[in-house]
């Protein structure tokens, strides 16, 4: 405001600051109205629940496990240092990182292949093929994997026939397979978007300037597709760290991940404060990790 007032006193100033200010204010109101539904929705269904979780993490419990909003304490947060929690957290983190890396390794060549198809029609069809799994319920698809990985499933039979593997259901590899399967499209799509809008004459320029095919890829294509790599990694890493359905159905009791641990706290253990503390901790870790990832990657995009 002060800045505008100063401008008004500038001699010979041709613009009318009052008019300009009004235009700007109108513009910002219009923007607010466009965004208002999203603001309202996110406030009520995203920010408030998160705050509730945060508040509950400091609450205490009655003898029957009912959360009591009194006797505020840090017990749930200190329990996070428990070796059991740590084991599960490390397992979840390893799984999420491995899942992200493997999805990236599988999705990159595939997205590259789609993006380099000459005809738009071919590209669209291939993209639809990537999206087809979303047409059926995730739970149903995970149960389908359960059948494939069970004793009489095709994958198990094939493994036993060749002597390469046995029954994988309810083991860590089964969860891993399920996670890669579930999150691969989330990696393919942003990578495709990044590669598709890439200016391929840059690669030609690189080749023209004596870069071999692989050199041109490393020096030009890869750095320019970085936004896609970052977006895809975040889209895969975050949900797989909190994955619940896949480990629950394919992992059995032995492969507990953070998602399962949280569910157990809210249901069987009836320990809402502790469940809330784990959720809150994951949220904080994720927020910090994402910010670091963006910072380091974002500068060179």
């Amino acid at each position: 405001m002060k800045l505008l007032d100063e401008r008004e006193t500038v001699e010979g100033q041709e613009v009318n600051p009052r008019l300009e200010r009004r235009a700007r204010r109108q513009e910002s109101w219009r923007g607010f109205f466009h965004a208002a539904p999203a603001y309202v929705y996110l406030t009520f269904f995203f920010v408030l629940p998160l705050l509730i979780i945060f508040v509950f993490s400091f609450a205490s419990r009655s003898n029957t496990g009912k959360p009591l909003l009194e006797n505020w304490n840090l017990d749930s947060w200190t329990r996070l240092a428990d070796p059991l929690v740590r084991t599960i957290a490390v397992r979840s983190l390893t799984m999420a990182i491995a899942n992200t890396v493997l999805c990236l390794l599988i999705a990159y060549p595939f997205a590259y292949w789609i993006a380099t198809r000459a005809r738009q029609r071919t590209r669209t069809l291939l993209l639809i093929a990537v999206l087809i799994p979303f047409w059926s319920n995730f739970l149903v698809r995970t149960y389908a994997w359960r059948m494939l990985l069970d004793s009489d499933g095709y994958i198990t039979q094939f493994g036993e026939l060749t002597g390469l593997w046995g029954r994988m259901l309810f083991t860590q590899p089964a969860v891993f397979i399920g996670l890669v399967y579930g999150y691969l499209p989330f990696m393919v799509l942003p990578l495709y978007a990044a590669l598709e809008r890439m200016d391929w004459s840059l690669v030609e320029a690189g080749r023209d300037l004596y870069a071999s095919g692989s050199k041109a890829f490393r020096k030009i294509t890869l750095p320019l597709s970085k936004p896609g790599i970052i977006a895809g990694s975040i889209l895969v890493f975050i949900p797989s760290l909190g994955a619940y359905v896949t480990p629950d159905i394919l992992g059995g009791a032995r492969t507990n991940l953070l998602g399962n641990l949280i569910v157990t706290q809210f249901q069987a253990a009836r320990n809402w404060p502790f469940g809330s503390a784990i959720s809150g901790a994951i949220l904080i870790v994720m927020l910090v990790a994402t910010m670091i990832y963006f910072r380091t990657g974002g500068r060179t995009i």
Partner: protein
Amino acid sequence: MNNRAAAVSLHGVTKRFGEDVVAVDDVDLEIRDGEFFSLLGPSGCGKTTTLRMIAGLEFPTEGSVRIHGEEMGLRSPDKRPVNTVFQSYALFPHMNVADNVAFGLKMKKIDDSEVRRRVGEAIDLVRLTGLDDRSPNALSGGQQQRVALARALVNQPAVLLLDEPLGALDLKLRQTMQLELKDIQNEVGITFVYVTHDQGEALTMSDRIGVMDEGRLAQFGPPEDIYESPQNLFVAGFVGQMCHLSAVVAEPGSVRLKGGELVGARTTTPNGTGVTLTVRPEKLSLYASASEAPQGRNALKGSIARRTFYGESLEYEVQLGASGSIEVRVENIPSIRRWSVGDQVIIDFHPEAAIALTE
């Protein structure tokens, strides 16, 4: 050919895309070492495809591409002694100016101090001194153009390929860059192969021009030849302004217009052939009567149908009755007679200026 080896030679080069698209059709071309050569033609005539085949970004379906006598075959672009300035510049957005320019030298594994020296020289050559650390996106179109040029020249290629490099610049900047490009070419002495659809650009810059039409080489020669002696209607119409009158060859050296007038012209086809008489508007003069006009030259009767003022010149459209109409361009010099619409005039021109062409 003279005793200097051809920098680039194409023999029977044809490029097909798919089954029925022929982008380049049986082109033979010899580009001399050290010359400024332009490939001129409308969009889609195959000039860019020809350039890309020299660069190795496309491979000919048939025929051979040689650079300094060496057959290129299926050799990839990184193994050819040529560099390209791309139409869109294709500067690497994730590198600064100096890194863009250094890219080729680094790929060639030239040692750092040498790279730094040559990059510095190249940046000075294109007059971008001090902008080394800038991102290409922070540069103006003209500056980006210079970076692209420096990035290619720094490698001292045997041949520099330029694909409409000035296409994205405004007129003033284009004119400056044309002169500058020519100067740089003189300074570095590298063979330039320049693709353009701008005939003015080709005429002013080139030592020789190849005019392309629908994948074929329509004519090939120094700018003066292309302008003064077009060999076919396409070249006549594409390069410079040209008036067309339909006619029939009456005898060698003269044609008869539709209105019956006999006109002296350069002919190459037998008597009786239907031809188009072409003549450049600036080679025509206007007189009030036949007695005023010089004798022994062509004189056509007509009346002024339209007058257009261009500033440095005036253009009159003259109606010739049954023979059609013709444009006359007159330089706007002091004491020049101004005509008005409806005036009866005699158009005078030298028989050498009129060329009878067939399709």
